[in-house]
C-alpha cells in the first residue's frame, strides 16, 4: 500500500512536469490539441494527489505503524477524527496536504474556465503546474510521508518493521479545532496561488482588458476569507487549549499567517482604484505577487524552524528549498513586469487629498507598513545574526507599539473611506456624512470615560468603532429608505433588497462591521485581570464579580489519557451561578501532560479557569483564573466577516424596475454581470458611488 501511495505521488510529479512543459510548448506553437492535453494533465494531478492522501489516511485508520509518519503521529487509542487530522500534524503530511489543496484549487481553476479565456488559461495552467512541481518535488524527494520503518535482523538484512503502537498525537493538537484550523489556514495559503497565476498569466500574455483583474479579485476574496478564518481559528485554539489566557502572542508562525492576509487586504482595496479609475496597475500586480511570495515564506517559516517558535517543529533542512523557490518566483515576477511594464501604464492621476483614491492610498500605505513591521520583527533574529553576528529577537512590545496605532488609523479609514467621493469630496458632503457618526462616537467615548475607563487606546478604539458602525448603518438606512418608499416595503426587507442589488458594496460594509467587532474585542484586552491561588476543597478565590469555590478534585481515566479534574462552583455577585470543571490531563501514549481550560463565555466577559495541577512545593492544587472582557466579540466578529465576504461574492440581483439605463455599468462587476449603477441611483449622493 505504501508503494501505491508513493507511486501516485511520483506520477503526479511527472504529470505536473508534463503539464508545465507541454503548456509552454502549446503557448509557443499554438497547437490546440496540446493545450488541451496540458490542461488535462494539470487536472489529473489532482486525482493522483488525492489517491496519495487517501492512502496515507488508510494507514492512519488501519493503525498500520509500519510507516514512520503514522507511528510518529498516531496511536491505536486515538479517536477517529484525530486520526484523520493526524495527516497534517507533522512535516511530511503537512506538505502533502499543501500539495493536495493546491491541486484541488488548480483543478477547479482549470475546470471552471475550461471554455473561457482561451488566450489566458494556457499561461495560468503553466504557472499552476510550476508551483505544483515545487511542492511535489518536496513530497517525492525531500520529505516523503511514505517512509517505512526498517530494522536489520541478525544477518544484517533489512526488513520492514512494524511497531505495535505509535507514539501518539501531540496532546496540544488533540482539540476539535485541530480538524478544522490547519485546513482553513492552508486553504488560504494555497488559495493565493490562483490569483497569482491569473495575474502573472495576464502580464505574461499581455491579456487585453481588465477582465483578469475581476477574476483575480474573486479568487483573492476566497483565499483571503479562508486565511482570515484560519487565523481566527488558530487564535481561538491557542486561547482554548494553551491555558495562558491569551489568543495572540506575536509568535513567528502566527505572524507568518498574518502577512499574506494583510497584503491580500491591501489588494482587495487597491484593486478598486484600477477598476474605477485605471490607476495603481503596477502596484496591484506587485501586491498579488508579494502576497503569494509571503504565502511561500509563511509555509517556509512554519515548516523549516528557521525562526524558533512555540509551534515547536523539529528543525529541518527544508528551508533551503523554499529560499530557492522564492528566488525563482521573484525573478520570474520581476522579469515579467520589466518586460511588460508599458502594459501597466496608469490612466489617471490623484486629484485631491480628500477623495476616495487618497483614502485607498493611505489604506495601502498603512497596511504595507503593518506588513513590513510584522515581517521585520519576525525575521529580526535572522537579519541581526547576519549583520552583527548576534541573534536578537523582539517581543510583543515592538509589535504592539507599531500595530496598535496602525490598526486605529485603519479603523478611522474604514469609516471615512467608503463615504468619500471619487476624485474630490466637498466640505459640505463631509459635514453631512460625518457629523452625526462622529458625534455618536465621541459621546460613547465620553460616557465610558465618565465610568472610569482611562486606557487611551481602548477609548480611541471605542470612539472609532462607534463612528464606523454609525456610518455603516447610516449607509444602509439611506439606501433602504429610498427602496422602502418606492416599493412600499418595510425597512428590513428594503435593506435586504439593497444589499442583494449591490452585494459587493454592502457585503463590504458587513465585512467592515465585523472588523469593528473584532477590534472592540481586542481592545477589551486592556482590562484583563488574573489571579492564581492554591485552592483546597472548601477554599475560594475572588475575581471581578465572581467568587470561585473549590468543591473537590477527582480522577478520570480512559485509553487515551488519565486526568485530574477540579469541580469548582462559581458565584456571581454572591449567588451560585454555575459549575466549572477544568482538568489536568496526562496523555498515555506520549506521556505528555496538558491542561483542559474551563471557559464560561458571555458577550461581556470570559471567565477562564485553568487547573494548573498540584504545586510541587506543597502538593496543594493550584487554580489560575482569568477575567477577559469582550473576547467573544472577536469570534462573533469573525463570523460577521465571513458572512460579509460571502455576500460580496454573490452576483448582484437585477431589479425588475430599472430606474436609469446602465450607461456606466460596464466598468464595474464584469464577472457577476450586475449593473450596480442602475440601482444605486436612488441612493446616490455626492458621498459615494460604490
Amino acid at each position, binding site marked *: 500500500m505504501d508503494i501505491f501511495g508513493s507511486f501516485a505521488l511520483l506520477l503526479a510529479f511527472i504529470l505536473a512536469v508534463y503539464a508545465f512543459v507541454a503548456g509552454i510548448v502549446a503557448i509557443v506553437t499554438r497547437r490546440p490539441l496540446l493545450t488541451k492535453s496540458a490542461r488535462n494533465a494539470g487536472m489529473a494531478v489532482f486525482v493522483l494527489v488525492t489517491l496519495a492522501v487517501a492512502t496515507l489516511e488508510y494507514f492512519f485508520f488501519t493503525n498500520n505503524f509500519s510507516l514512520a509518519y503514522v507511528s510518529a503521529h498516531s496511536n491505536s487509542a486515538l479517536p477517529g477524527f484525530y486520526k484523520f487530522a493526524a495527516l497534517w500534524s507533522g512535516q511530511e503530511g503537512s506538505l502533502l496536504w499543501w500539495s493536495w489543496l493546491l491541486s484541488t484549487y488548480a483543478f477547479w481553476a482549470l475546470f471552471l474556465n475550461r471554455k473561457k479565456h482561451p488566450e489566458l488559461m494556457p499561461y495560468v495552467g503553466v504557472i499552476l503546474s510550476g508551483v505544483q512541481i515545487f511542492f511535489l518535488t518536496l513530497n517525492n524527494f525531500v520529505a516523503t510521508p511514505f517512509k517505512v*520503518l526498517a530494522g536489520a535482523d541478525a544477518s544484517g538484512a*533489512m526488513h520492514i518493521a512494524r*511497531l505495535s503502537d505509535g507514539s501518539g498525537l501531540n496532546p496540544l493538537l488533540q482539540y476539535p479545532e485541530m480538524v478544522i484550523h490547519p485546513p482553513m489556514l492552508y486553504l488560504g495559503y494555497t488559495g493565493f496561488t490562483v490569483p497569482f497565476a491569473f495575474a502573472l498569466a495576464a502580464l505574461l500574455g499581455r491579456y487585453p482588458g481588465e477582465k483578469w483583474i475581476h477574476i483575480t479579485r474573486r479568487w483573492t476574496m476566497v483565499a483571503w476569507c479562508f486565511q482570515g478564518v484560519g487565523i481566527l481559528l488558530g487564535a481561538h485554539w491557542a486561547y482554548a487549549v494553551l491555558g495562558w489566557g491569551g489568543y495572540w502572542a506575536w509568535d513567528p508562525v502566527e505572524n507568518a499567517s498574518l502577512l499574506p492576509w494583510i497584503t491580500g487586504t491591501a489588494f482587495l482595496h487597491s484593486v478598486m482604484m484600477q477598476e474605477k479609475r485605471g490607476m495603481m496597475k503596477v502596484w496591484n500586480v506587485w501586491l498579488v505577487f508579494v502576497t503569494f511570495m509571503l504565502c511561500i515564506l509563511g509555509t517556509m517559516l512554519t515548516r523549516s524552524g528557521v525562526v524558533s517558535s512555540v509551534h515547536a517543529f523539529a528543525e529541518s533542512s527544508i528551508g533551503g528549498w523554499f529560499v530557492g523557490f522564492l528566488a525563482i518566483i521573484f525573478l520570474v515576477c520581476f522579469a515579467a513586469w520589466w518586460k511588460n511594464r508599458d502594459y501597466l501604464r496608469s490612466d489617471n492621476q*490623484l486629484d485631491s487629498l480628500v477623495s476616495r483614491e487618497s483614502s485607498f492610498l493611505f489604506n495601502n500605505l498603512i497596511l504595507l507598513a503593518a506588513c513590513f513591521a510584522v515581517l521585520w520583527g519576525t525575521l529580526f533574529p535572522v537579519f541581526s545574526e547576519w549583520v552583527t553576528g548576534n541573534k536578537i*529577537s*523582539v517581543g510583543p512590545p515592538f509589535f504592539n507599539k*507599531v500595530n496598535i496605532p496602525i490598526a486605529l488609523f485603519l479603523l478611522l479609514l474604514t469609516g471615512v473611506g467608503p463615504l468619500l467621493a471619487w476624485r474630490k469630496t466637498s466640505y459640505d458632503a463631509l459635514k453631512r456624512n460625518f457629523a452625526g457618526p462622529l458625534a455618536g462616537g465621541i459621546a460613547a467615548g465620553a460616557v465610558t470615560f465618565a465610568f472610569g475607563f482611562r486606557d487611551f487606546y481602548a477609548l480611541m478604539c471605542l470612539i472609532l468603532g462607534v463612528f464606523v458602525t454609525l456610518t455603516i448603518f447610516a449607509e444602509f438606512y439611506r439606501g433602504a429608505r429610498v427602496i422602502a418608499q418606492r416599493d412600499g416595503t418595510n425597512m428590513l426587507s428594503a435593506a435586504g433588497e439593497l444589499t442583494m442589488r449591490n452585494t459587493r458594496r454592502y457585503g463590504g460594509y458587513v465585512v467592515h462591521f465585523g472588523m469593528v467587532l473584532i477590534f472592540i474585542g481586542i481592545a477589551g484586552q486592556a482590562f484583563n485581570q488574573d489571579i492564581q491561588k492554591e485552592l483546597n476543597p472548601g477554599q475560594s478565590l475572588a475575581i471581578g464579580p465572581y467568587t470561585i469555590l473549590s468543591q473537590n478534585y477527582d480522577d478520570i481515566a480512559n485509553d487515551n489519557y488519565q486526568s485530574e479534574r477540579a469541580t469548582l462552583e462559581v458565584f456571581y455577585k454572591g449567588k451560585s451561578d454555575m459549575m466549572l470543571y477544568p482538568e489536568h490531563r496526562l496523555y498515555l501514549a506520549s506521556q505528555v501532560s496538558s491542561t483542559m481550560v474551563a471557559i464560561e463565555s458571555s458577550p461581556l466577559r470570559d471567565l477562564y479557569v485553568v487547573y494548573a495541577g498540584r504545586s*510541587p512545593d506543597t502538593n496543594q492544587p*493550584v487554580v489560575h483564573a482569568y477575567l477577559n472582557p469582550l473576547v467573544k466579540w472577536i469570534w462573533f466578529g469573525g463570523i460577521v466577516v465571513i458572512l460579509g465576504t460571502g455576500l460580496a461574492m454573490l452576483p448582484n440581483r437585477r431589479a425588475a424596475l430599472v430606474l436609469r439605463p446602465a450607461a456606466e455599468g460596464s466598468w464595474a462587476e464584469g464577472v457577476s454581470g450586475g449593473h450596480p449603477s442602475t440601482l444605486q441611483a436612488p441612493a446616490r449622493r455626492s458621498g459615494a458611488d460604490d
Partner: protein
Amino acid sequence: MRARGKFVVGSAIIVATLLVLAYVGYTQSKTYYHTISELSSLPGPAMHQRMRVSGNVRAGSIAHLDGRVDFVLEEEGKSLPVSYTGRDPLPDTFKDGAQALVEGRLGPDGRFVAEQVQAKCASKYEATPGAAPGNSPGATTHPGQS
C-alpha cells in the same frame, strides 16, 4: 500635482511616526540569544542585556524553593544555574532532560534569573525505539529500497 505633494507629506509623517514607535518598541523588547558557552566570554555591557539561553535541564537539578524554582541548564558540556522567579506555573513539558528556553537577565553572581521558561519534550518528534525487537528508529528508508 498638489494633491500628490500633500499625499507624499502625509505619508512621510505617518512613516516617521511609525519608525519612532518601532524604535521605542525595539529598545523595550530586544532580547539577545546566547549559548551557554558564549556567556562567560561576553564583554561587560553585553552581560546586562536581556537575553535568551537554551539548554537541556540537568536530571535531578530541579529544586522548588519558596518563591522560585532553581535548576541547571546544560549544553555542550557547559552548565548554567538558573532561578525562575516568574509568576506563571512552569510548563507541563518542563522536566528532567527537557529542552528549555529561558528568558531573563544574568545576575552578578553568574546565576541566570529567568522571567520566562519555555520547554519542549526532546523526544516527542522521534520514532519510539524498542517496540519491535531489533528495530532501530534511525534506520528509515524509502519504500522500494528495502
